[in-house]
């Protein structure tokens, strides 16, 4: 089970618009991206996120695990997240 840390200064709006104040970069997340990001912000583990997403969306566990892993890599590449 893994957990991630999102720095406090990163803000996400209800529309999924994300702003990184230290560089001025902005990102737009779709609905599922926003849901996952908010769960990460709340300190949920990857296991809990898989469970929540498979219950809320029509998606198989294997697919969400793979997409989640890609998403985390992308967030890391933009310095939006750290593994803890």
């Amino acid at each position, binding site marked *: 089970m893994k957990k991630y840390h999102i720095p406090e*200064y990163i803000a996400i709006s209800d529309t999924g618009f994300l*702003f990184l*104040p*230290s*560089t*001025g*970069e902005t990102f737009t997340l779709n609905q599922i991206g926003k849901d996952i990001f908010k769960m990460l912000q709340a300190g949920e583990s990857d296991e809990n996120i898989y469970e929540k997403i498979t219950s809320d969306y029509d998606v198989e566990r294997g697919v969400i695990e793979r997409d989640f892993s890609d998403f985390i890599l992308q967030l890391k590449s933009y310095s939006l997240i750290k593994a803890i």
Partner: protein
Amino acid sequence: MKIAVTGLNATDNPGPGVPVIRSILDSEEFKGEIIGLIYDSLEPGIYMKDIADRCYLIPYPSSGLDALFNRIVQIHEKEKIDLIIPTLDSELFGFIKIKEKLEEIGIKTFLPTFEQLNYRAKDKLFDFCTLHGIKVPKNILINSMQDMYSIPQKFDYPVVVKGIFYDAYIANNFEEAMSAFNKMRGKWGYPIIVQEYVKGTEFNVVALGDGTGNTTGAVAMRKLYITDKGKGWAGITIDDPVLLDISHKLIKGLRWKSGMELEYMKSAESGEYYLLEINPRFPAWVYLAPAAGQNLPYALVQLAFNKEVPNFTKFKVGTIFVRSSWDLITDISKFEEIAVKGEFKL
């Protein structure tokens, strides 16, 4: 109070005059008039509503300091100017040179000294930064064609070829460097600066130093849109304490007096900031500063009149500017006024 401001050339390579005036006019405390000092009858700021109350043509710096001073005396007899804010790099030397004479006739300025201006010059910046522990790309000064042949021994390509006042080209090989060198030599003369190319993201800071080493205010920005001339056409205020710390250190080291723009590159490789340039005046995007909570141009006005100005300590992060292009319509008679009489009232 009457404040005269230069640099109303709000073109695709905009001067800072219009945003400096907008900032001053935005201050609720300011009660006075703005006099535009212009070099050309087609400077767009002349024709903008609610910017300058009146405009006057002044001679280009190349006409000499006597011509400039005599013209200002003429304008002063009519207008009784209290303060002049020159906003263009190329005129700073002249205004610093005549600032005591201006003071004698009752016109204040708030300008750096020659020494300060010299330290931040492109050809001196490397030594100054090295002395103060600030990272700066390595550079060499080119004073002849022969010097160009030393590039391959000192740097890997690409390199940045810069003019002493304006312009910069990225050259990927010796042929491109020579082509840039020839353009610069014809336009700006020697020395030409060849600089190590730091790959990364550019950040800018607008700041005001009070002349004692203290930073009255500073706002950091990242350009969101850059024109083919390298001008920021949109930008956003950002929160990076490291960037502001370096800027404070520089202002302290220089004991900078006046507005300024600091240009940095954040290295993609190391994440460290490299200082690329210090521009000795407010940038054309200075209106972002009051919009984010730091009215630096008006603070400069207050400092010029020896008023106490508390330091700005914060600004609103996420404030965006987007520049626009807008056609101003005027009548030929208005153009005639400025072209023939050298004076204009909208």
